[in-house]
């Protein structure tokens, strides 16, 4: 399980370019920060009002006014800046975040995303997710390929949408998929899986790139 998360997070980190401003969702996306390649220097934005998000606080060294968007105690890096929520979402909606990485409940082949509620059951709210996926230059979904076998990559989302046609790339433990005019395109694969296994784990058609790469390479 930890392996699966590490596979996803390490592949996500390869999408970052030197100088990028990046917003990472809670969970697997946040882990990507631990795998950033040498020579790539990015600034992490946290939508509660921080550019220059650092690692979680060491126990006993928490600063009570410094949390991340998940409400957990964190640190700030040298050169950080604090600002209010209006500025923070001005940065997000204004297209100043280069990459945002989030989890999802469902993604469909047109790039629609559902990740904010299960009606009548679990309704935590969208928080900053709708702003992030509409505003960021590149939207990457990082998640396990299925929900305990249940399809999350679909022909059409069934849950309430977070946004329409915003997802560009999906990174799972099985492979990397891009959203194209013709739907899901598998561009990289984890050699532990076969294309057939990925097809079986996906609720929509998948095209396979002519130059399919090893996502773990």
């Amino acid at each position, binding site marked *: 399980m930890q392996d699966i998360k590490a596979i996803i997070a390490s592949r996500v980190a390869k999408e970052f370019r030197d100088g990028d401003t990046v917003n990472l969702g809670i969970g697997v996306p946040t882990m990507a920060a631990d795998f950033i390649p040498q020579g790539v220097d990015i600034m992490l934005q*946290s*939508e*509660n*009002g*921080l550019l220059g998000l650092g690692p979680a606080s060491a126990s006993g060294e928490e*600063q*009570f*006014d*410094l*949390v991340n968007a*998940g*409400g957990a*105690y964190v640190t*700030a890096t040298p050169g950080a800046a*604090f*600002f*209010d*929520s*209006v500025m*923070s*979402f001005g940065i*997000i*909606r204004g297209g100043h975040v280069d990459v945002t990485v989030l989890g999802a409940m469902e993604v469909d082949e047109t790039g629609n995303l559902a990740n904010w*509620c299960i009606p*009548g*059951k*679990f*309704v*935590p*709210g*969208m*928080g*900053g*997710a*709708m*702003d992030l996926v*509409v*505003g960021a230059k590149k939207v990457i979904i990082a998640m396990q390929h299925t929900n305990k076998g249940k399809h999350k990559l679909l022909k059409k989302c069934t849950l*309430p*949408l*977070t*946004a*329409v046609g915003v997802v560009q790339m999906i990174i799972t433990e099985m492979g990397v998929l891009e959203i194209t005019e013709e739907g899901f395109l598998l561009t990289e694969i984890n050699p532990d899986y076969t294309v057939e296994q990925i097809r079986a784990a996906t609720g929509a058609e998948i095209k396979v790139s002519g130059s399919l790469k090893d996502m773990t390479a």
Partner: protein
Amino acid sequence: MKNKIVTAEQAVECIGDGAVIMVGGFASIGTPEELIDALVKKGSKDLTIISCDAGRAGLGVGKLLRNGQVKKLIASHVGLNSEVAYRTPDQPEIYNVEYVLVPQGTLAECIRAAGCGLGGILTPVGLGTAVAEGKETVMVKGKEYLLEEPFSADFALIRGSMADQAGNVIYNMTARNFNTVMAMAAEHVILCAEEIVEIGAIDPNHVMTPALFIDSIVGGAKPCRI
């Protein structure tokens, strides 16, 4: 000069039943717990709360929810309050509260619009989702935007790190969040600060909320341990 410094009890005395109240903070960081406590004690009912979130179970707005004082909650996220996030079919409206969920950037911007005298905002966020239902859209240069109306309030309860006696406020780190903008959008703004200093003790370059927005100042805010 008018004296703005009062106790928490005095500060919330004017908040009656049915009031619309903005509460600062994000995940209970930057939330004026002492003002919430005073409001719980006063017991005003049927409140409409506008806040980034629902606090945590028994923290921030969570205290008002537990105490049955809230009629309607307008927020972007309630997931950190375990008492609220899991709404099951047999418990559709926990605490009999009406929840209105708003994208966080839209919430911030619509509060700002009220504070800045704008008629609303034109945002691409929420188009094609449940958020857009029943709302007008406007085309600008061939692109569609959702028209979201301003959020104003009777009161704002905010929390600062340091304030001078006039009401100039400084916030610390991520505790700034919604406090600055809520101070602009409410009729009556009550600040709870950790430290109150003499006028002139704050560098005018560093002021984050100018004094004109603050009506009452309560001292003694404690660092919030979550």
